[in-house]
């Protein structure tokens, strides 16, 4: 017994000694979204963002200077979300000089470059897991003492966003802020789900068109994940849920006439760089909503939408495409719920939610332009 006491005392003493010497970083074990236990000294001072869009999280935690700890990042933000990138670039011009890693999906990066940037941690997205493991990055980085953690706000956003935010909070030593954000997000979603659970309204059939007008092809849509899932959470029935086996696919244009959806939601974004003058609806950060409205109306004239109930009732809407891989997607869920059940959510103001998100958590000023409906104006 005494023996145990002595060992325990020694251990406590050792710990005290340890925490005393390592002032900057306290070694903690973090469980990432894959369930791995990773030892990291926190708070970290230098991070590599394995995906540029992880700045959505970092910005909510390091609000005053979101890039102060970022020593390198993947170059996907400028490609996937050019409006946000432009807004960040305008406010923090130094990000143009940040070392970048190329490549979109494969999750590869130059390990030599990564090591030379001396990060305290490398944060990877769950989608890059296979590539990361195949290349043995975890072991290679481990040899030079750089830990790697996985987060996820895209593969399973509903399950993993909270856990990811907690991991980020621990890493950056901003756990209170992370909890604030998690609570704000949960409350915002509850405003939709609580009402739906109580009222249990009829679920309208919703056709979600992925990137409508981007090409001549009609009718790319979503299966059970992504926007398909967001529609279900917002109290609708995703038209393509039994048609598209995976997440993405194309429905037969005729199917829309056959299913006769009550609501149509078309995802859009500013794709001027890819399809100049195309028929896409350019919603997004600070978008021109008059123009977006005109283009949305134009899309309702396609053969596949002939005589469909949603068009006749004016229930055709456009939503910012990038909500699908964005921790701010609870705002989209609120907006979709309001579109699907206008009577139930008269008091809900998604615009105000988004404004509050910016005011409380984000370094950027809010600019509207993410949503437009044929009924507007």
């Amino acid at each position: 017994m005494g023996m145990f006491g002595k060992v325990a005392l020694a251990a406590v003493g050792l710990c005290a000694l340890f925490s005393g010497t390592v002032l900057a970083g306290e070694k903690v074990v973090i469980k990432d979204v894959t369930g791995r236990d990773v030892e990291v000294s926190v708070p970290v001072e230098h991070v590599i963002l394995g995906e540029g869009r992880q700045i959505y999280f970092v910005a909510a935690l390091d609000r005053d200077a979101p890039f102060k700890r970022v020593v390198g990042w993947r170059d996907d933000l400028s490609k996937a979300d050019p409006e946000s990138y432009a807004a960040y670039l305008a406010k923090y011009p130094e990000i143009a000089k940040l070392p970048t890693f190329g490549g979109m999906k494969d999750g590869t990066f130059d390990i030599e470059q990564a090591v030379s940037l001396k990060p305290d941690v490398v944060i990877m997205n769950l989608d890059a897991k296979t590539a990361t493991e195949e290349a043995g990055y975890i072991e290679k980085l481990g040899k030079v003492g750089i830990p790697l953690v996985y987060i996820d706000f895209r593969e399973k956003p509903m399950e993993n966003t909270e856990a990811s935010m907690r991991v980020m909070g621990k890493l950056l030593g901003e756990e209170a802020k992370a909890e604030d954000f998690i609570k704000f997000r949960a409350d915002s979603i509850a405003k939709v789900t609580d009402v739906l659970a109580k009222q249990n309204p009829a679920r309208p059939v919703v056709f979600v068109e992925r990137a409508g007008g981007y090409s001549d092809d009609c009718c790319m849509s979503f299966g059970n994940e992504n926007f398909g899932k967001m529609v279900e959470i917002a109290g609708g029935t995703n038209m393509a849920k039994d048609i598209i086996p995976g997440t993405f696919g194309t429905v037969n244009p005729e199917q829309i006439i056959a299913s006769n959806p009550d609501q149509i939601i078309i995802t859009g974004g500013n794709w001027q760089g890819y399809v100049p003058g195309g028929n896409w609806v350019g919603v997004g950060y600070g978008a021109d909503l008059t123009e977006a409205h005109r283009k949305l109306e134009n899309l309702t004239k396609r053969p596949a939408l002939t005589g469909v109930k949603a068009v006749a009732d004016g229930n055709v809407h456009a939503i910012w495409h990038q909500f699908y891989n964005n921790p701010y997607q609870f705002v989209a869920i609120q907006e979709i719920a309001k579109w699907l059940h206008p009577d139930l959510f008269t008091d809900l103001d998604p615009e105000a939610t988004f404004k509050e998100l910016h005011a409380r958590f984000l370094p950027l000023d809010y600019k509207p332009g993410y949503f437009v409906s044929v009924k507007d104006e």
Partner: protein
Amino acid sequence: MAIATEPLETTTGRDQYRALALRRIVLICAMLVALCFSISIDMALGPANYTLREVLTSLFYAESVGDQLRVVIWDIRMPIALMAVTVGASLSLAGAQMQTILANPLASPFTLGISAAAGFGAALGLIGGVAIFPAAVQYMIPINAFLMAMAAALFIHFASTMRGVTVETIVLLGIALVFTFNALLSLLEYLASEQALAAVVFWTMGSLTKATWPKVWITGAVLLFAIPLFARHAWALTALRLGEDKAASLGINVRRLRLHTMMTVSLLAAIPVSFVGTIGFVGLVGPHIARMLVGEDQRFFLPASVLCGALLLSATSVVSKTLIPGAILPIGVITALVGVPFFFVLIFTNRRRAW
């Protein structure tokens, strides 16, 4: 004895020839019937579940039916059904004549890099927003694809006219083109945004959902222009299969025949690919199936190739929309899955040397 049997042999020879020709004509007619059947099924089936009566009424008395029915039949089902026919026919015919003039069983719009070039052209537009021909930005993707495909075809052609270049070299050049354009395409994909990447991947899988009436007319017109042109040279093209020297000794201007054929083939291959994306299988295998069924004689081989390609893609169109009701699977993927089993059967049951 020998004298006595000779007339008998000539008569059996003539009879045999007649029987053979008749067999081939019957086969071609059978393909035509099958094609009509396949088009009818393509027109009759769809998730909107209209009855045959409704479909027929809409076909013949379009004004008397409701908006939705008319749109489904005339603007959704019919362009796709007809596009499958024109595209399949064009690609197969292009492949057939490439194989003929290059004397190589592996020649096709796909293996000679024309499809890969078109894919790269489309990707330039989809990823970089680059219009090779800036005057018509709204048709950027098909125009880009077409120009790149023509450039590849003309490169192959001019290389083939150079001194000392053999048909084997040309096929090697084609393969080099495939790899070059695929590498360039991958490079673009590496640089692309997710949205553009998805669009490119989908484009390169080929899809008939992009079909519209103007596209049907254009591909149909090119086909109607090409068929009589080839038909006029049917004997010369058949003779070319005996070998370049033999054809030349029969009085055929081989160089000119190659030039004219290659130009027409380029159009035939480039236009469909620029409209519907990469559909690889038809251009290579359509002609082989035709050859196994009716042989090398262009009088039969030409229509058989056209019908084979059309039938293959039309059947694929039916399968691609019925496999998962309501969804449309990428046609480039389904074409091979539909065609390969049939092709295997032909290869293993056909004891004659097909090439």
